[in-house]
């Protein structure tokens, strides 16, 4: 069973994501901001993180930087899921080492496809 970490401060978005990925047989972890995510990552090594950018306390950019520094998480994929949809935002997200960048509002179907695609290429 693959592990997935959902990081977003919007409870209603989290609810949809949680339902979807549980249905797709993922073990789901939930964080309401970057700080909570980093706390979870101290004990869990998920295969994939879905990361919002604009959040209270610690934002998505800071979070990915720490994820990329964590040696235990070298295989962990990161997808940015953000309402920031400018070219420059996407570019910045990819430069920080994200594997994909999806803009809000998003299609659940496409997100699931993206997640499966990223996980199938990994060993």
């Amino acid at each position: 069973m693959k592990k997935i970490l959902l990081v977003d401060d919007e409870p209603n978005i989290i609810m949809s994501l949680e339902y979807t990925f549980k249905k797709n047989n993922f073990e789901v972890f939930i964080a309401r901001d970057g700080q909570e995510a980093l706390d979870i990552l101290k004990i869990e090594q998920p295969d994939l993180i879905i990361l919002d950018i604009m959040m209270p306390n610690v934002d998505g950019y800071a979070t990915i930087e720490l994820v990329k520094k964590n040696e235990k998480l070298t295989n962990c994929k990161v997808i940015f899921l953000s309402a920031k949809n400018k070219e420059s935002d996407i570019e910045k997200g990819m430069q920080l080492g994200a594997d994909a960048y999806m803009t809000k509002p998003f299609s659940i179907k496409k997100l699931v496809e993206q997640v499966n695609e990223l996980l199938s290429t990994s060993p």
Partner: protein
Amino acid sequence: MNSGILIVILLLYLGLLFFIAQWAERKGNSKWTNNPYVYSLSLAVYCTTWTYYGSIGVAANSGLNYIPIYLGPVIAFPAWIVILRKIIRISRVNKISSIADFISLRYGNSRFLGALVTVISLMAILPYVGLQLKAISETFHIVTNSTESNNVFLDTSTYVALVLALFASFYGTRYVDASEKRKGIVTAVAMESVLKLFFFIILGLYVTFYVFDGFDAIYAKASLMDNFEERNTIHGLEGGMNWMMLIILSFFSIFLLPRQFHMSIVENNREKHIRTAIWLFPLYLLLFNLFVYPIAWGGNILFEGKDVNPDMFSLLIPQLFDNTFMTVLVFLGGFSAAISMIVVSSITLSTMLSNNLLIPYGLLGSLQKDNQESNSERIVNIRRIGIFLLIILAFIYYRFFIMDFSLVSVGMISFVIVAQLGPAFFGAIFWKRGSLNGAVAGIIVGMLICFYTIMLPFLLSSINPESNFFKEGFFGYTFLQPFQLFGLDYLEPIPHALFWSLLFNSLVYLFVSVSFKGNYRERNYAEMFVDIDKYINNHENAFIWKGTAYVSDIKKVLKRFLGEERTNRALSIFKMKYNIAPDNLLADARLVKFAENLLTGHIGTASAKILIESVTKEDKISLPEVLKILEESKENLIINKKLTETSNELKVLSAQLKTANETLVIKDKQKDEFLDTVTHELRTPITAIRAASEILHDDDEIPGEIKKQFLQNIITESDRLNRLIDKILDLEKFETGKQKIYLSTGNIIQTISKSLSPLQQLISNKKIHVEFDENQFKVLVDFDEERIIQVITNLVSNAIKFTDEKQGLIIITVLNEEDFIKINVFNNGKGINPNELETIFDKFYQSNNQNIKKPIGSGLGLAICKQIIEAHKGKIWAENVQKGVTFSFILPKNK
């Protein structure tokens, strides 16, 4: 009184003045000597023995006729602010030391005109000085009860005159540079002005209140005298005309008398001293004239039927009552008035004599060859001997010519002669077309008429008072009668002479000036005089001169008069001022003018010009050329001024643009941030709605409970979206001013309670504590309730968001002040970054780190609050306090 004792008193008095002069000279520029009061009082050199004795004679004989001589100056004072300041400036920059310098410089630095003015001044003032000596002598004899000795060398007054001459010649020539200030003399004169006024007032009080019983008593007795009525009328229109002419006469005198020119212009230290003088001097004259009338008529009453000279009433009255002290006091006052006039006049006359007559017409050649020390010594000696001789000459004049005339008539003749300088003088500062030929012709014609209408008859009458000349005129032409020229028969001799001489003088001056143009130099100085304010700071620039001159030659000349050290110092200052290279060999127009100025104080304007001319080679410039240069420089000045103005305007404008641009850049950035925030905020509920809908759409196996939850989410998020849109529109309305505030008086306590009730659910959910006393006294204020509810709701919901669950505390307080009410919403949540305390109210605000989302939400809420409060003319702000944050706003009570 014994004449020996009186002489001792006089010598003591002179010693005191000498001491004061010495002291002031040593003090230099201290506040005791260099102040507007000393300046104003020194102007009172105007009041001579004429005021002391003569006025009383006039008042005794013809009532108020003594007044016009003081009215003229008083009328002139308001004009002083303009005229005097202009003359002072012209004189200062050109180093002018006398009225002869002033007039001759303006008309092309004419040697001849300077000499003419000097001669006229001598003619006018010498007799006048003689008159003062006469007054001293006469009063001396009255006080000592002695008679004038026929042998000049046995008469005490001769020796008094000698002592005076020595005093003046020693004190008047302290400096070679005649344009230097003479602190000693000025202070001594000011002191004498105080004394003479003081003594005169004491006399006035003595006569009015001791001898008589006040003004009324004198009037009551005087009005019973036979000729009282007749002596105290203006004599209709004709008398009025006489008055007017006398006023004009004295108006001119206050500017033109050489001693007045000297005191008010040459000795002026600061322009602003004029401001004190224009009230203090008229006040001085008023005080002086207060008792003239009572003394005069008191004298008339006391000496009725006796043959005494009314001029001497002020001595005779105390003497009649054997009051020796008062008699001596009055004598000293008159003596003060006399010596002030004698000393100042003789100094100015001797300066004019040396600088405008003797040096340019003879001595210059020998001065040119000598060195500085002997030159300075010779110039000083010339002046010293000049002063001495002038006083002795005046004494001789008095002894042999004016023994029998009253003080006033000789004084009046002096005034009329001096007034001939008027047209050229006033033309000099106001009319650029006035020319040398016009000035000379005007003055000569005026003088001829003076000679014919007063001086000649004056001399004739002392020889043969019955001469046919008076009745039949020249060669029997009746229209040439000296006192009724051209049939003008209703003026007294003095106003009559003034009228005709001044009329012809002015007309000739105008006519000649307009008909024949002056040369380029006159035109050049005309420009510098009339427009002095334009050139005040760099007047050397205004001087037009073309030719070849070497700095070394000019330096050689300067050294002869200034000495090595002063010459070098002056030249280095000059080079610094105009930024000229020290090794520049050729002199330009500015240096020529500068050098002339340096010499002017020593040897006068005309000689300075002659000396500089002797070492320079000037090319002739035509008048049209000068006019062109002047026009150009004037245009340049205007253009320069305009350029400076424009460039200043541009600077201001560009600064404004810069700020505007900066504001725009900030606004633009804020707008981008706002759009980012708003789109993010709008997308968030849409995202939630879309995700939930997609699941509901695609997933058929979704359990009923979860399905319901998703549907609930869609409803919540749709509401949120709608609220957001409302907020954006609200803000837009406030910003564009479309949102109106509807004020009505209400109890703010009630409004707060109303705002809190919908939030109760949220509060109890989060288990936080809200403190607010709903039962406190009414607080009435004008506000838009709906909008204020919006503000309070926003602040309280923010506070709820800021505080932690269970431990949260919110305190709402209301302060009722005299002018305003203040509402505080405190919460014990995390403080706000101090940098952001103000910016959180900006509508485009986002936290510095753009990706950290504020718990407040879009940030629109506080922006709207701010708009609402500002629409109420109130203020809203946030501050970090101990253990939390307080958001406060005030609503003013009187809008």
